Structures are given as C-alpha cells and as structure tokens.
C-alpha cells in the first residue's frame, strides 16, 4: 500500500516537473539548413541541429519528445528527438511540405503540401503517410480544432480556409478570407481562429464552429503569422514588409500598438509571458515581453530564420 502511494507520489512529482519545465523554441533557418533550439528560460541557443534543405515548418510533439521540421527543398520531414536534440529519422515525401501541425493526441502529423494542393496525414508511430486529401491551392498554415473534429487549412492561392471534418475525411466547407492567407492559430480556449492575409494586409477572425468570417482587422504590410498571449487577451501579428509586430486587443478587435522588431519577421509563438518572433532578414529571434509589450531581447540564430507554425510546445492542457 505504502509502496503504491509512494509510486503515485513519484509519478505526480514527475508530471509536475514535466509540466513546469520551461520549454524550448525550435527555429528553422532556411539559409543554414538548420534548427536553432532556444531555451526560453534564459533565451539562450542551446543547440543547432542540421536538418534538410530550406527548412520552414515546425511542429512540437511534447509527449512524444519529438519535433517535426518540414524541409521544402529536399521534400522531406526531419524528425528530431527533443531529449537529445538529434535528428533520428527523415520522412521522404514526393511533394513540397510547408506547414505542419499535430493532432491533439500527437498520433497524427498533418502536412500542407504546397505544390500538390493537398494535406497529408502521417502516422507518428510509423512515420508512414496514412492518407492525403485535396484542399485548395497552395495550402500553408493548418491547425486542428481543440475538440479534434476539424482540421483548418489556409489555402494561400485560393484565398480561403478549408474546414476538413476529420471523421468524415473530407472538406465540409471553405470560408473566404482575405487575399493570400498564410499563417493561422486558434485562441487558447480554441473558440476563435485567426488567419493572416499576406496580400490583404489583414487578419481574418472566424469564431467556432468555424462556419463564417466574423471580422477582419487591418494590420501592416505583408503580414505573415499570428500568436496569442497565454491569457488569450492579446493577438500578435508579424508584418514582414513593415519589420514590426501588430498588437491587437481581442475584446475590441483593434490594433493597440505596433512594435518594431528584427527585419522581415515571419514565425511567431508565445511562451511564458514572452512572444518569440523569427526575423528572416536579420537572422535572429526578437523577444517581446507581453506585460510591457516591449522588445526585450534579440537572439542570434541562423540564416533566414522562418519558424513557421507553433514552434514552442504549448503549456500543459
């Protein structure tokens, strides 16, 4: 009996440690063909991992202790073991992988295949492609709804978001958004989808159950990606053409300020009251403190940092 309690206690302590451990940011460097691993506890690069050619997308499977990287020019996915920071396998594909995301249970990796206008579902246990599904033209960002019912895909060259019903395995509707939707994310509660329109210079807002466009918010030149603060109150959008991040209040859906960051900011993710922004132009990651909304650090990474997707593990949910 006491042994069982002891085991339980140890398990609980281990769980607590896992949940409380500061995560890492995985930054793809297109020009260096590498991934910089940043410890968000001290904002230091702790490892640089060689991957395939022109890496862009990132998906972090924290339970599996794996990180998936899309190498668009070598038409492959690098699989990193996040406890050793080494590539353990490379999944070869016939298409051009860009956006990546994981199912909530981490059993399936979804891949946006840019030129083939389809989404691939890869089994993370076997690294085999289970199925493919035609979506719109040039699929880019994608994310699974929190209830696991839908996969939401930004079709850059169709100017819409495809809503895939995962159980039925088909696109159930396509929601018109702005011109050239690219990055997207869900609010922390999963109730609101935000999609960035590169040519539209705007952010489209689609409320659950993801049936129609709810609002459009103007941002700056050639916006790319979006992230939210942990409390869901603030939206941050990278503006590649303006070298800045737009800060938006989710209640009023209005831009409250614009923060200058490293040039050509692309990928953006939130962790522990900080926003991390990959600067393609300056080869670094800009860090914004979400309590002050000020730039607090610049971390040198590799050439042409992109970090497309959720590149830091989401806190325990």
């Amino acid at each position: 009996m006491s042994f069982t309690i002891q085991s339980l206690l140890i398990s609980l302590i281990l769980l607590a440690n896992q949940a409380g451990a500061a995560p890492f940011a995985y930054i793809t460097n297109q020009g260096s063909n590498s991934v910089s691993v940043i410890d968000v506890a001290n904002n230091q690069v702790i490892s640089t991992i060689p991957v395939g050619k022109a890496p862009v997308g990132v998906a972090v499977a924290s339970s599996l202790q794996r990180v998936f990287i899309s190498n668009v020019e070598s038409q492959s996915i690098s699989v990193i073991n996040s406890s050793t920071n080494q590539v353990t396998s490379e999944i070869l594909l016939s298409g051009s992988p860009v956006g990546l995301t994981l199912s909530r249970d981490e059993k399936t990796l979804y891949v946006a295949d840019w030129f083939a206008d389809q989404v691939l579902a890869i089994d993370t246990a076997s690294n085999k492609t289970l199925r493919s599904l035609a979506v719109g033209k040039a699929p880019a960002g994608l994310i699974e709804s929190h209830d696991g019912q839908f996969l939401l895909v930004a079709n850059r060259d169709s100017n819409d978001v495809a809503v895939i019903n995962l159980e039925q395995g088909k696109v159930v509707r396509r929601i018109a958004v702005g011109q050239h939707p690219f990055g997207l994310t869900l609010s922390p509660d999963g109730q609101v989808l935000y999609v960035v329109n590169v040519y539209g210079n705007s952010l489209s807002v689609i409320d659950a159950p993801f049936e129609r466009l709810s609002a459009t918010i103007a941002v700056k030149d050639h916006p790319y990606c979006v992230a939210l603060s942990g409390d869901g109150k603030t939206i941050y959008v990278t503006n590649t053409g303006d070298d800045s991040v737009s800060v938006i209040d989710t209640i009023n859906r209005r831009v409250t300020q614009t923060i200058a960051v490293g040039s050509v900011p692309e990928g953006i993710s939130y962790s522990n009251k900080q926003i991390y922004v990959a600067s393609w132009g300056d080869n670094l990651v800009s860090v914004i403190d979400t309590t002050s909304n000020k730039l607090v650090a610049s971390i040198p990474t590799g050439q042409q940092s992109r970090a497309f997707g959720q590149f830091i593990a989401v806190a325990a949910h």
Partner: protein
Amino acid sequence: MKKLLAFIAVALLPLTAAAHGPSPQKVEKEIVIKADPTKVWAMVKDFGGIHKWLPPVASTKVETKGDDTFRTLTLKDGGTILERLKSSDDKDMKLKYEIVEGVLPVTNYNATMTVKAGPGAGETTVVWLARFYRMYTLNPPIPAGQDDESAVKAVTGVFDAGLPNLKKVLEAK
C-alpha cells in the same frame, strides 16, 4: 500617363494571380561610406534619382497614381523595371520599394535600403536587403534561367554594381 496606368494594370494581374515557390530568396549587401548620414540618406531616398548612382540605369521616370508613387527605370540595354515606393522613413532612414514588373528574373521582389551612422566617426553604413522569389512559380522541373540561382545572381549583380558606385559618387562630392 494613360499608357503607364494601362501597363501597371496589366503588370498587376500576374502579381495577384500567380503562385510562387515556397522559399523566399535573399540578397543583402552593405557598404561603409565616408560621408555624413544625412547626405547619404538624401541620395538614397531620392526615388527619382537612382540613375545618379546605379550604373545599369540610364534614366528614371517618376509618376504618381493616387497615393502611390512609381518609378520606371530604363536600363542602358533598353530594358525597363517598374517599381513602387512603399515607404520612406526620415526618422529611421529606411526606404522600402517593390518591383511591379521588369526585366529581372524575379517575382514578388521587395527591397529595403537602410542608412545608419557609423561604424567610425564621419562614416555611414548603407544596407541593401532584398527578398524575392524565383521567376518560375510552379512545381519543378524549373526552366533554365528561372530558378533560385538565376534570381539571386541577377539581384546580386545589381547590388554589387550599385553600392560601390554610391560610395564613389558620395565621397567625390
């Protein structure tokens, strides 16, 4: 003017309709000039005066349409490049423009020229950064001359011709 507008209208069509490859290309060059930053910035921001320091350009013609400012560069070999001014920031000394249409083998070309004081006293650094995609926007195989390498080579050629001459012109003043 009417002709230019028609040209712009036609040129904008492929820009909005065409896809491009997934990997943007980058050329970044910088040069240190022995001149005052304000003097350097005055020459860099002169949108209609790029022929004064960029050797391949024979003449520049500036036209406006609504809030937009365009320039047509006529090259010495007869080719033209139409560009749109995106912003000119006197505080940060930063000029941004894009190519609408032209003879360079690129698509979705955006460039920034930044002027900064230093590194030494009486010196100014000019950074020229371009982000663009190759000309061929579909799936491989890519036709010769329309790949990433050709695009990077063409832009590098322009920058390498321009910056040393910008230095020469400003230091001669």
